[in-house]
């Protein structure tokens, strides 16, 4: 019987789009277009997910159990016709694991004496 640890490890490394979508949903419930905007803002316009990429990722992530659709609107401000998504506990675990993986990687890079070029 595979443990949860195995399930998480099987997800890594996450495709960048997936990781960004998880980050966008970490603290908030959002609809698709809001996710695109959030990713764009967060990356200072460097990453703009196309609608196709977004929904393909969303479809897969729902199936993988990383995110889930929110059944009911939470506030009156929410658009009635939109579909909203939230991160699942499993999604949070996976996002953390990916973060750890990336941190370890950066630490290794530092240890080898590599310095990032000043932006």
């Amino acid at each position: 019987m595979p443990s949860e640890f195995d399930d998480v490890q099987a997800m890594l490394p996450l495709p960048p789009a997936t990781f960004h979508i998880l980050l966008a949903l970490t603290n908030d419930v959002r609809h698709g277009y809001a996710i695109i905007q959030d990713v764009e803002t967060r990356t200072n316009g460097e990453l703009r997910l196309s609608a196709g990429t977004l929904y393909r990722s969303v479809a897969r992530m729902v199936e993988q159990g990383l995110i889930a659709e929110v059944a009911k609107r939470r506030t009156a401000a929410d658009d009635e016709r939109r579909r909203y998504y939230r991160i699942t506990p499993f999604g949070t675990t996976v996002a953390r694991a990916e973060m750890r993986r990336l941190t370890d990687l950066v630490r290794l890079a530092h240890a080898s004496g590599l310095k990032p070029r000043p932006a």
Partner: protein
Amino acid sequence: MRFYRALLRLYPESFRADYAAELARTFEENVRHRGRFGAMVAAVADVVPNALAVHWAILLQDLRFTARTLNGSRGFAIAAVLITALGVGANTATFSVADFVLLRPLPFKDPNAIVRLCEGPRDGSGWGCMNELSPANFRNAATDTRSFEGWGAFTGASVNMVGSGEPVRIGGYRVTAQLFPVLGVPPMIGRTFDTTQAGAADAASLVLSWGLWQTQFGGDQQVLGKTLRLDGVPYSVIGVMPRTFQFPDEGAQLWMPLIFRDDDYSDRGDTYIHAVGRLKNGVTFEQGRADLAAVFDRLARDFPETNAETGFSYFRQRDFVLPQFRLMLLALTGASLCMLLLTCANIANLLLARAASRERELAVRASLGAGRDRLVRQMLTESVVLAVMGAVAGVVAAALAMPLLSRLVPPTMPLASVPVLDIRVFAIAAVFALLTGLGFGLLPAIRVGGTTGFEALREGARGGGRRQRLRSTLVALEVAVSVMLLVSSGLLIRAVLRVQAIDPGFTSDGVLTLRTALPSPKYDSAAPRAVFYDRVLSQVRALPGVEQAAYTSGLPMVLTGGIAGVVVPGYPEQNRRRDGVSFRLISEDFFDALRIPLKMGRDLEENDTPDRQLVAVVSESFVEHYWPGQDPIGRTFEVRAQSRTVVGVVADIKVRGLERSNEPQVYIPARQPPDDGLGGLYVPKDLVIRAPGQGLALLPAVREIIRTADVEQPVSSVRMMSAVLEGQTETRTAQLRVLGALAILALLLAGVGIHGLLAFTVAQRGREIGVRLALGAQPSLVARMVVSEAARLTILGIVPGLIGAWAAARAMRALLFGIPPEDPLTIVAAAALCLATAMLGALRPAIRAARVNPISALKAD
């Protein structure tokens, strides 16, 4: 917006159902930000790759799911793969042979323009090459017609080759220089014969086949100019043909020039050449025929003494396949298509049964939100996976069956004898696999998709009546197809037995034969030949175990020609073509060696020498034809310009073959050859040795005897006479094996189909059976219900199967050797076999039905 909605159709339906609205909304936002045009361009670049990716992801998911489910029901998966393999394999193999023989272009330039010409009956009847041409008639055909680009002529010229090792007999042809340009195949090395200067310069040249170049010269590139001694005469190599060039048949190992001298044209009745021509561009085959007809009409008028009865036979090289071969290949193709039908029916049945047993699972998935298209797609993926696995197994099976099937390639074709599995064949296999996979995966898939979830859940495991009917129809169809194949094979078996039962007129057991073809000019006169024969025969007869030994100019069923005309006093002038006799020169003891019974008079004797009365022994049919009811002994007739006296009468033999009509036979002593010399055909060359129980063990001693008689004399065509006789039915036997194998497979599939259906029915109706048993029905009655259902299905299949079989048998009547298509024995046997198989298939389900425990059956739901 309409544009974007259309674009979204690229996504699978299930994805669209979930996300189309969201995507459309995002597109609207994009239009606001980027303007209509920019948004549209971005949308195309976005949707196309992503839609493909979604499809791919679903495919992977379905494949994973398929792997899981098939792994979970391995029996089903193995059965489906094996059944598909049978259908695809049978069809792939049959197609490759049929394609090879009937469809594929011959390895010549523009092969459809290549035609063959022979002499034939004046009325145009008969098929194929009835008679060779005379050089004079050939010359008229070549020069007096306008439809042809050119004509080549050829004649068989096997030669003895004395090279480095043992002397060997080599199959060669003499060909006119024009032959190679007419076929349009350039040599691989060197050149072919010179067409410009009557070819005289090339009189001692030869062109090698690829095979002989390899065996004799080890594929040496520097072969040009080297010499080979053929029948004692040196020939120098001027060219090597490519490997694919096999003309006129695969026995051609070398080509020597055929050069006509003026006196070769003097006798129009002297027929020994074959002709091959090439139609001019834009001239049709039929125009060519009309052109030739005019020439032969004129020849018949101008030279009535030789040409009055002489017509021509004209056909495309492509069609130089005996009609029996063509018919048999078509029959096999038909049988294979039947197998495909059977395969499809069986697979469809398997999938239907599976679909029924998975109905609740699917209904549950549907009610949990899986779209109908996803379920259908999932099932299709499953059947295509099965079909592909089956196809791979099928192609492997076809490759294994190839050696057997290659025996179906007619030996008269200018082709290498083994068909190959190539890209065309694989393409066909793929098509067959797709047909089985898609066509019959689709049917159950649609039915599943069509059942609404609730209905299926409510229906429980009882299954719909309509689906049951469909499955019964499929099983009946399987029975029908197997009946057709069984009856066809049965009729062919009867035909083979009937052919084998024909008395050849001689006894072949314990007879060893071999050929010592005495070359010209060394053995042109009778005296040196007599020395050779006497020496060999006396020593062979002295070998332990040898009862008789004799020489003949041709073995029965091997030399089928060798026809001479006779003039019988008191009989009107004969036509050589119509009233010919099979003319043989033999040594004494020939009749004893082959156990041909002497009916009257005496055998030929050692003292039938040229200085004594010229004698002959004739067969009974000769006597019946010319002197019915009279004593033939002492009567005379003329053959090859000599008058001969009949001294004996022997029984007739099947000299041309078991299935052919045979001329009366005339035998003359080898010691009294005709004055006009002997063509190679009539020179005694086949040694017949009766030594019961010795088989081939005698061969080394015989070879040694021949080597001491003439060290340069090769021995060829070593075979047992019984093998010659078996060869008469070899093609039939090969065909029968293939068709018989298909019939047995079909029967097995039908049996499996019946078993599957009944087992499933019993499982599904367990509850009903339980109720019946609980209400007091006898278990034997329940079992009988199952068995009678099997009988009903079988009879439903047998009736249309017999009608189909009758139609098929009528179509292949030419192969049946007089067995009527409605042969009762075959029909009854086939039907009984089918019924027995059905009963066998019903056995286990019947027992299971009788053992149903009413209590657990009722509790189950």
